[in-house]
């Protein structure tokens, strides 16, 4: 399946989706690790895609959102941001609200 199509179906199937380096259990990058910690702190149920083991998704997701870095968080298919934006939204309580509203 083509990368963009694969991404679209992943986002349709998962309300809270994190594209990251490594897994939630073993993040391979500090920013991805931070993103996982933030989602856990929000009490979120989330799925992850490891872009390191999916090179086509790694490039594809950057095109999808016009965003050059990983991690990337999506809620109900909407691109929320990278780890800096996640942290800001967590600190203001906005992220918890979005997740609890699901």
């Amino acid at each position, binding site marked *: 399946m083509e990368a963009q199509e694969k991404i679209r179906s992943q986002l349709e199937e998962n309300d809270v989706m994190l594209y990251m380096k490594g897994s939630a259990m073993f993040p391979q990058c500090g920013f991805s690790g931070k993103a996982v910690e933030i989602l856990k702190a929000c009490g979120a149920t989330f799925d992850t895609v490891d872009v390191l083991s999916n090179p086509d998704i790694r490039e594809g997701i950057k095109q999808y959102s016009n965003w050059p*870095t990983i991690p990337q968080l999506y809620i109900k298919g909407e691109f929320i941001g990278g*780890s800096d934006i996640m942290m*800001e939204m967590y600190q203001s309580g906005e992220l918890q609200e979005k997740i609890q509203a699901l």
Partner: protein
Amino acid sequence: MVTPEDIKGWIEQGISDCRVEINGDGQHFYAVIVSPEFTGKNRVQQHQLVYKALGDRMKAEIHALSMQTMSPEEYAARDGAA
């Protein structure tokens, strides 16, 4: 090696009238960027402007950049709150 001043210069070239405060060690950088170009844009759109200014350097030279972006109004509000 990329210096904080390099990144500051690239951002300033790409975004009009911006103020950039940046720290970093050549690997990890942390930037606060304030510009009127950010007014009326959400965080994602603000960061996209910075990424656009940095272009392909995000793929090669710059390994890890954290940033906070604000319009002058947001910056003033933050100062007021702090």
